[in-house]
């Protein structure tokens, strides 16, 4: 009865609420098909409350002490235990019966723009658009210029005179720039629940596996449709969708053959004559350019 002994050992030092909390987390892990770890760093407590409410029909969001989470993961065992590696800094737990790809998408969509912190790494290019700001003339012009944003007075307001990329993705954002971006109400950062990893039916999915490349799917569908259409036409398998193409193909092939092989065919006579006439004109043009007298008068017009 080693487990019981250990339990007893812990109960001697651990308060009851902690034991219950661990048990609670373990039960949640076991009662939902998906259990994930989300980063909640940078999310104010109040906003976290809002997020929890918004998710309540889809998922349970729980924040606990990391030591307790780790304990619970150990107790739950299985793949849950493998998520231990993701328990660091400020994390929350999410429990749902949703498709892991869907929950990832939902969480990504719920992220909201937030001011970038001084010294933070730009998550993407930060661009300041040209145009009027709401600021009256003042020292802000110098402040703008000092972070590389060209500014001038226009119609009594401070105006940014040129669209400027003030930081590239991966650049460290200086304190001055961060402050200015905040003043300009440019929020390059994103704040929200950042799903780091989930367990799902015995496997672990990390965020890069969960991110669906919608463009890739779209182009796969386009490719598949094209392939199916190509196959149906090239195999001459008539369907309602391709019969028009098959007819056109047959007609064109017949026409091509008829014209290219100069087959005497009433329907092609106009084309034959036009073609001959056009060819004659083309050659006549060249001849005429060399020697006017080489062509007859009716061609000189």
């Amino acid at each position, binding site marked *: 009865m080693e487990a019981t002994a250990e339990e007893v050992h812990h109960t001697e030092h651990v308060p009851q609420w902690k034991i219950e909390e661990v048990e609670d987390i373990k039960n949640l892990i076991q009662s939902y098909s998906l259990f994930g770890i989300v980063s909640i760093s940078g999310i104010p407590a109040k906003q976290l409350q809002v997020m929890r409410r918004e998710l309540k029909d889809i998922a349970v969001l729980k924040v606990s002490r990391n030591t307790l989470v780790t304990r619970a993961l150990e107790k739950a065992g299985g793949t849950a235990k493998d998520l231990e590696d993701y328990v660091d800094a400020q994390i929350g737990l999410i429990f749902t019966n949703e498709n892991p790809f869907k929950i990832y998408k939902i969480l990504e969509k719920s992220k909201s723009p937030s001011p970038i912190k001084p010294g933070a790494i730009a998550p993407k290019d930060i661009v300041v658009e040209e145009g009027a700001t709401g600021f009256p003339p003042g020292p802000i012009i110098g402040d703008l210029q000092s972070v590389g944003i060209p500014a001038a007075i226009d119609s009594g307001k401070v105006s940014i005179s040129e669209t400027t990329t003030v930081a590239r993705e991966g650049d460290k954002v200086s304190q001055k720039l961060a402050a200015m971006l905040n003043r300009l109400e440019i929020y390059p950062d994103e704040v929200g629940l950042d799903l780091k990893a989930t367990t799902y039916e015995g496997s672990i999915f990390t965020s890069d596996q969960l991110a669906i490349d919608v463009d890739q799917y779209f182009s796969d569908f386009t490719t598949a449709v094209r392939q199916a259409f190509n196959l149906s036409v090239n195999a001459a398998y008539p369907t309602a969708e391709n019969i028009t193409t098959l007819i056109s*193909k047959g007609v064109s092939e017949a026409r091509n053959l008829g014209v290219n092989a100069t087959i005497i065919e009433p329907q092609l006579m106009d084309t034959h004559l036009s073609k001959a006439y056009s060819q004659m004109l083309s050659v006549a043009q060249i001849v005429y350019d060399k020697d006017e007298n080489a062509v007859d008068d009716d061609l000189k017009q």
Partner: protein
Amino acid sequence: MEYIYAALLLHNAGKDITEDTVKNVLDAAGIEVDDARVKALVAALEDVDIEEAMSQAAFAAPAAGGSSPS
């Protein structure tokens, strides 16, 4: 494409495109006819305005076959 050519041949001659007429033409060409394909062809042609489909070929002609003219 034999089945399609057969249909176009009949259409151009002002004949009805039926399973029998298509089969006759293909037979005469010494082609072993697959009844299911004939059926599929006739069925697909049922709801199509052949004349209109043919007229579209003219627009598409330069693209024919997908090989560039040399």
